[in-house]
Every structure is written in structure tokens, then in C-alpha cells.
């Protein structure tokens, strides 16, 4: 299937938002929606097998909290503070699949976040001082 389902897009947005609660560090907030370019890029440019893997990763993150003490609910049903805390804890995991899922989401979080012009601006200047 070449398209992410709407609920998969919504879940990925929740994951990226919890991965980087930027406004808590005084940085521009994630303000992407389900029409963000990241989804178009993923659907248009990656292989079907990668999208299948991505779905599996999202499912891993969605369902893991159900069997964790202190959560006992799907990721998407947790409040934001718990979603953030869950990802912070998952980052300590030594298990390959959860860790790889998290790192893949972290990569896309970075790409998606800095696709926002307001997120890039505080950091970007050329070596010679001009706007990049």
C-alpha cells in the first residue's frame, strides 16, 4: 500500500511532537499537520517495503505502552506528558526493534521539524555571515 492511512499520519505526528517538545526548550513549536510534506515525501520517494517497515515501527510505538506499567494504554491515548515520558524511557531500551523504531522516528522528526521555516531561522547563517 503506497499511502499511509490517516490514523497512521496522525499517530506519526503525535510521535514527532513527543519526540521533540521544542517549546519546552524555548524553541518554535512543532506545528505540522496531516498534510505536511514529510508524508508526501515518504509516500512518493520510499519503497513499498520501507513503508511496511514504517507501519510496523509505528505499531510498535503505539502498542508498547499497553504492556508497560504506568501507561497501560495505547500511545495515542496517552496525554502529551506521558507520551513524552514514554519516548524518553523507550530511548533507554536495549532491544533492537523498539530502539530502531525510535531512532527512525527521531530522524524523520528532525527532517520534518526543520522543514518549518521558523524552526530553521534561529540556527542558519552561512560561514561568511549571510543568510543560507
Amino acid at each position, binding site marked *: 500500500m503506497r499511502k499511509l492511512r490517516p490514523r497512521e499520519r496522525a499517530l506519526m505526528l503525535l510521535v514527532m511532537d*513527543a*519526540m*521533540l*517538545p*521544542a517549546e*519546552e*526548550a*524555548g*524553541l518554535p513549536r512543532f506545528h505540522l499537520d496531516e498534510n505536511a*510534506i*514529510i508524508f*508526501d*515525501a*515518504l509516500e*512518493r*520517494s*520510499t*519503497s513499498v517495503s*520501507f513503508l511496511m*517497515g514504517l507501519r510496523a515501527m509505528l505499531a510498535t510505538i503505539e502498542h508498547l505502552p499497553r504492556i508497560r506499567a504506568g501507561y497501560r494504554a495505547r500511545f495515542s491515548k496517552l496525554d502529551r506528558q506521558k507520551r*513524552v*515520558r514514554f*519516548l*524518553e524511557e*523507550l*530511548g533507554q*531500551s*536495549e532491544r*533492537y526493534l523498539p*530502539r*530502531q523504531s*525510535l*531512532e527512525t522516528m*527521531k*530522524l524523520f*522528526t*528532525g*527532517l*520534518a*521539524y*526543520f*522543514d518549518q521555516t521558523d*524552526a*530553521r531561522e534561529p*540556527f*542558519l*547563517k*552561512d*560561514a*561568511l555571515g549571510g543568510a*543560507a
Partner: protein
Amino acid sequence: MIPDIDGRNEHAPLRLASEFIVVGSGPAGATAALRLARRGARVLILEEGEAPPDPAEPSALRAMSALYRELGTSVAFGNLPMPYLQGRALGGTSVINGAISWRLPKRVAEEWYAVDPALEEVLSYEAITRVTEEIEKELSIAPTRPDVAHKKNLRMAKGAERLGIGHRPIARNVSGCIGSGRCLQGCPHGAKLSMDRSYLPEAQKLGARVVSGAKVARILHDSRGAYGVRGMLLSGERFEARAAHGVILAASAIGTPLLLLESGLRAGPVGEYFSAHPGLSMTALFDEPIEPQRGATQGHEVYGFLEERIKLEVLGFDLGLILSRLPGHGRTLAENLRRLDHYAIYGAALRAHAKGRVRSRGGRAEVRYSLEPRDLASARRAVRRLGELFFAAGAREVYPGIPGFRSVLRSEEELSAIEREIPLDAKRFTMSMTHLFGTARIGSDAEKSVVSPRFEHHRVPRLFVVDSSVFPDNIGVNPQLPIMALAALAAEGIAG
């Protein structure tokens, strides 16, 4: 650059003819095409990707979507699934690499000659050096200037100097670089002399025709040899191209064997002996600002560990990719992003012993590759070398990024724990591959190689392979310049 034909805009089946067809417009294809055009040959260059956006995309996400094969998500499967990065654009991977230009090490050529002495007759080191020097001059290859190196590169130089290990500014194919740190998403200032800004336009001026958005699916061949190719344009229309003198494959160490296999050319070790340089990266925190997003993308390197099959280099990324390499998740990641200016990221490329395989699965490449235990030992040693380098460069904290191991190291003394506490388990590491070789090897024995020492297919006359597929093994250094040198020599032989 502007292609002569844009496959996205062709809305009828296309038929083309030329003396030579070159499949792929990266360093190998562009070099071979230009060398043939200089000798008066009529050349048709077919590229699956499109012209890089002009002006360049400011967002890494959009640039990667336009320029990288599968958005950089292609994965080799084995004991550690590893992404491999390839360009898909006019100019191929030269558009998205760090412009690093190394000569082929003489000891590597000697390894090749030891295995197959016939190679020395056609690919003598003197001949390789001659064309290498020509390319260096044409592409303005020179060491990174201090005024564009900026702190991440200068810090590595300082650390390596303190350790007393071999290091130097990286030689790159750039002209007028201002150090915007965005080589990997297509130079925004046109300073990188990637193939779309150098050899391809020159070949066009000499009469070569360039077609973008043209994915070759089959090589046309009969008992007399190769006579053309056919495939699909981005518009969805079919195309067919006929070649009077030869078909030249330069579609990469993944694309070339795939094309051979899909064309029924399965004789010899097609797709076998896949080798690479797996790489890993490490991040460190400094007290003073480093500004990793500024300065030459990859401007300094440590060559002092080549005997250990390890090469260290500065890694420069766009902000989005830098973020993915900062420690932590959630609030920790956000806090670390706030002090992004204080981080540096260095990488290690390994000359791995492992050999993998490329196969066709329904017309798509399936890459299998598993690191050997000795490669994992090299990876672990590289983690230590990077740690030593960071501390010598003045880092306050180093983040090894190995699950189950200390998440942060604060002194050189702690580095000794790396060998003690990190098991040689592939899945402990996070690695990717960028340099791919060996899937249509050159050699005199048709059972052990795919093309002859003159780069011609052992069984199909007038079919040539000139890209890194022909390399008998990996080379331990960045291969762009050696790839171009071999393609230049191949073209000289093909032109006669």
C-alpha cells in the same frame, strides 16, 4: 543543468539512437561520456533521476526527496540492517556527497594486481595516476581552505595533532566554496563541481545528449552483442535507444548488477562480492560553540588509522540530520537542540571484510550484507578512536551511542571500558553505508569476474561496465576520484 530531453515532459514513446549509450550520469557515467565525446564519439546519456532543483532546496527533507534514491531509506539486510545512500539525479551521487576526493591508494592497486596480474597491464598505477591528475586539475581538487573549514574541522585538526596521528584538510572538488555546510543536499551556491556542474555540461557542448527521467529496464543484446536499451520515462511513456558501438553501464554497484540480472545476463558472479565502507558516527559536546551546521561539510580527516582499516572524518549535516544525532529523546532532545551550537559530529568509515550480494526481487534490488566479527571489532575500535579524538579536541562529553553501554563519557580514562564492555554484537551498533563496490567485478577469469580487464562483458561484446561495480574490492578511502579514474581509462580503451 538543463537536460536535452526531460522524460517527465515526453508524452509519446521515444526512440533514440547514438554511437554509445551511457546508463547513469554520476561520476563514472559522466567521466566516460565526456572522454568519449572529447574523442568525437556521439554519446547519449540516460539518467533515471532529474535535474537538481535550481535554486537548491533550503529544506533537507525536500532536497533529499528530490535527490536521494528512496529518500535515503534503501536498506541492506543482514545481521545489522544498514541504510545505504545513493543519489538519484543528473550527476548521480556527486550531487549529494561531501566532494571528498582521494587518489586510489597504491597498496590497494597492488592488492588487485596480486589477485589478477592481468589487471596491471590495462590499469597500471602509472595510468591511473595520469588520469587522476587530469581529473584533479579539471575539477579544481584541492585541500579545504582554513577560511571555510570553520570550527568542527579545525577542532579535529587540533585533536589529531595532539594525538600525533596522520590528518589533513580534505581535498575536495569545489570552486568558490563559502562553507555553507550543505554539500549533502546539493550545494546551494553551485560551488561543488558535481557532474551536473562540470562534466555533463561539457559533454553536452561536445554534442552529447542528456536524457533525464529515463529509467533503463533492459539491455538489448543478441549473439553479436549489445545494441541498445529500453525502459520507462517519468511520464510513463516507454523509450528505446539503439547504440551502434556500445552500451556502457554506470548505474552503481546496486543498479548495474540489477540491470544485468533483469536483462538475463546472469553468467559470472553478477551481484556477488558486494563490498562497502560501513560507517558510524559519534557526537560530542564542547564548552565553546562549534556550530556544526557551519563550515565546509566535510573538511578534515584522519588517515592515521588506515592500517586498522578505519578512516575518520568530520561529518557535516543539515539541521534536521544533526538533530537526529543529538543525544536523548523528548525533553532531553529539546534541551540539547537548544545548545546545538556546542556539538560536533565525527564519523568513521570502515574498510570492512564482509562480502554481500545484490539480487533482483521482482525487478527491485535486494541487498544482503552481514558484518563479520572482525568488522565488528573494527567498529568497536573506531568508537574508541573517535572518543580519543574528541577528548583530544577538547570535548567535555562524548556520546558513544551504543545501547547498553555508558550513554556519556566524560574522560579519556573511561574509553578503556569500550573494549571491555561493548560486546561484538552487530545490533549494538548504528551504521550506514555510502561507498559500494564489486558486484560486476573486473578480471581475466570469466568464472570469477563479469567484465574483462578492458571493461567489456565476458560474454556480450560491446557491453561495458565502468562504475564501482568493477572494483575487485573496497578501497578504504572515499572512492569518487578512483571511480572517475577507472571510468576514464575504460573510455580510452572503448574509444580505441
